[in-house]
């Protein structure tokens, strides 16, 4: 067993997920079986092999630093669950 139910709970918090008792038990079993399946990668010799992060080797695509049109505040806020004074509104963060 690689992952304990407590670790699953911790990973859920990192991923900002709230799990029910039932989900925690199910994910513990399922994630462990998936991680066990991943073990086979450890047999492969990857000494001096660089990791590939992207299919196309492109680095730093720049454009001129010129102002461009963007969404208006109304458009940017049109899907907001809650808003006030042209801003997204969330529960109080600072006491």
């Amino acid at each position, binding site marked *: 067993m690689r992952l304990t139910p407590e670790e699953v709970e911790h*990973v859920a918090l990192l*991923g900002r997920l709230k799990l029910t008792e039932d989900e925690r038990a199910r994910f513990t079993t399922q994630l462990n079986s998936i991680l066990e399946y991943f073990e086979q990668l*450890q047999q492969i010799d990857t000494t001096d092999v660089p990791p590939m992060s992207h299919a196309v080797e492109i680095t730093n695509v720049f454009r001129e630093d010129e102002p461009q049109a963007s969404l208006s505040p109304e458009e940017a806020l*049109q899907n907001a669950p809650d808003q006030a004074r042209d801003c997204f509104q969330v529960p109080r963060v600072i006491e």
Partner: protein
Amino acid sequence: MSAPLHDLTAHELSDLLRRKELSARALVAAMYARIAEVDCDLHSYLLFTRDEAEQQAAEVDERRARGSDLPPLAGIPLALKDIFCTQGIETTCGSKILAGFVPPYDAHVVERCRANGLVLLGKTNMDEFAMGSSTENSSRGPSRNPWDLEKVPGGSSGGSAAAVAASEAIVALGTDTGGSIRQPASLCGIVGMKPTYGRISRYGVIAYASSLDQVGPLVKEVRDCALMLNVLCGHDARDATSLDSPTPDYTQSLTTDLKGLRVGLVREFMEYQGVGVDAEVGGAVRAAVDKLQELGAECEEVSLPNLNYSIPVYYIIAPAEASSNLARYDGVQYGHRTATADDIIEMYTKTRDEGFGAEVKRRIMLGTYALSAGYYDAYYIKAGQVRTLIRRDFDRAFARCDLLVGPVSPTVAFGLGEKTDDPVSMYLSDVCTIPVNLAGLPGMSIPCGFSSDGLPIGLHLVGKTLGEETILRAAYAYEQSTDWHRRQAHPIQEVDGRRRAVSRAL
């Protein structure tokens, strides 16, 4: 013309429209009549855009009446996977968390389709956030396979594939992160293509795994695929990974002579870790290789041993990228927010708990774990290194071959509910398609036979980087010398005067 309008291809309809033997408005009416007939059983669509479609069609007709020279696909009915942002039209990505989300802008490919006069019929069903191989992970319920309504259409672009296969759309767009265009195209018996990574802009496409996601067409015939690539491909500065290389006219590749083409049948596509694909699938693929040889190609078997690790590599990399991409769904800027929360952390966690389905949560958990302190090197870096080895295997094979082939899916369409409780068995249905995404290569599924149950089998054609033209050439030559693509799914049949949905299991 004996065939009903909805059963025609884009290039046939394009000819009729151009010759003014058909109006775009009449075509839209015919498509919605077909949809009314079959979509209650298939559930290919999540949303229809009938008013807008009629308006777009009327504009095309007017411009043609005025004598304007219109693009080839002007007036052709299109379905869009619900992963593409459409200005003013709800876009949910198959998720409860985006219910009611109305994008303020169009995806780049949607702009291109509009500029080319394609007529949007509606948005199609998909696995939530493109995570799945059957559409069973859609928050709105699964779509069904037009060849057998008890079977899945494949996924994640299953709604788009079912819509085209059942003639509810003439062309459709999907996305392919690990096989999500090719696998449903194979299971539904149509043509589906994922071009080279970067060939088509991802701007406005809701992200799943950004280093793998790619847009592509689902169509009835190879010529339609070439016409759609002409619409979709090209540089877009708003996607930093968009390739800035010239775009050919893809219809120029549609020739029928394969003399000198070097084709490799990939052993690891035929069997993964020693387990072979279904006998009927393997047989149909070998017969297709013989056909390619008859057409002039030189065929040999090739081995790419590191493809045997594709599944674990993909299921580390894709969830890692997804866990980051999906952090934005937190109830702040758009989509669902929980009704009550005492503080902001609770608002995030409750919103995401209510909004995401089980598979999405599973992949967020997996990705978060793989990226977390202490495990990053063992999982994420290791997977990236093996990804390099997979890419090198392809490079070596392409030193000998112009094109690689094999099956698209190890089985024909499986039953609804058959794999939903076993994530790893569902993951294995993408075993032949995943390595192509990891290497960023172009790939296509094209019909190459049917099982004894009458379910379609797809041939997988994989090209070099920017090798779309070679794929089209081989696919077109193969298609023109076979008639698999002419078989039509008839999801609804009249039996003894009564309407009956097709199920071969019953």
